[in-house]
């Protein structure tokens, strides 16, 4: 019904655009549609902020606390049997 050129970008396409992966055919729509461009910019800004979130570390000694409660399986010699 609607011509692809006229269709607004879907959320998936906006994500592709923010990653620089939007197919050229849809880029044409973006070039003509201020609404999609504005939304795309807002999405890109959000992606950037999310991607910059730091990773937190648990308290020092986490590995040892975990290893203290893990049962190491008795070593098998499956490698030799294969």
């Amino acid at each position: 019904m609607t011509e692809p050129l006229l269709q607004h970008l879907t959320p998936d396409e906006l994500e592709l655009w923010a990653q620089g992966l939007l197919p050229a055919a849809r880029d044409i729509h973006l070039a003509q549609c201020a609404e999609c461009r504005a939304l795309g910019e807002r999405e890109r800004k959000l992606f950037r902020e999310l991607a910059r979130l730091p990773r937190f570390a648990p308290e020092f000694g986490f590995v040892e606390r975990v290893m203290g409660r893990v049962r190491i399986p008795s070593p098998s010699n499956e490698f030799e049997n294969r």
Partner: protein
Amino acid sequence: MRAATSNAGDGVIGAKDRPSNLTGASDPEVAQWAQHGHEPAFRELVRRYERPVFSLLYRMVRDRALAEDLAQETFIKVLNGIKSYNPQFKFSSWIFKIANNAAIDHLRKRDLDTLSLDGSPHATTPEEMSATALQLGDRGESPLQEVEARELGSAIERAIAKLRPEYRACILLRHVEGHSYEEIARILDLPLGTVKTYIHRGRNELRVYLEDRKA
């Protein structure tokens, strides 16, 4: 002390099969070494995933001590069940699935315990949301809570906290951990279409929360 004791696997796994460079090995390789009882492989898996898993849990429950407990629970479950790991699947998907389940279980129990309290992760009305925001920001009594307020106090962290847990998990797995939609569907045991919907709604809500603050 444990590190100093000799690894029980060394005697059985031939020297030629021993991983020469554990840190350079892929996740499935390390997991397979763990399946064969190679203790350093267990440590390597914990080292690789302690931060991503802890960060996800911390952002889900917003309580450092609790996130650490849930992270420990996750690793113990994963490592004690390492024999059931299927290397055809991503190790990260498996561990995040168990971590997310731990977080969601906890949040459900907490909701049942504190149905009447504000700050519900399911806040939908503006009143509920501002109650949530107040609760998140104004509780710097203990040193640990001060750390939490500092670490999770930015606008974006507070906006993430306002998302309902299902949206929050999806957004974190997609945009912080970089999983594909398909992987997230596997991790969360949800249909692909549902994952997409949650992520799109989550992003819309985040944009609204962030833009409201600036307005």
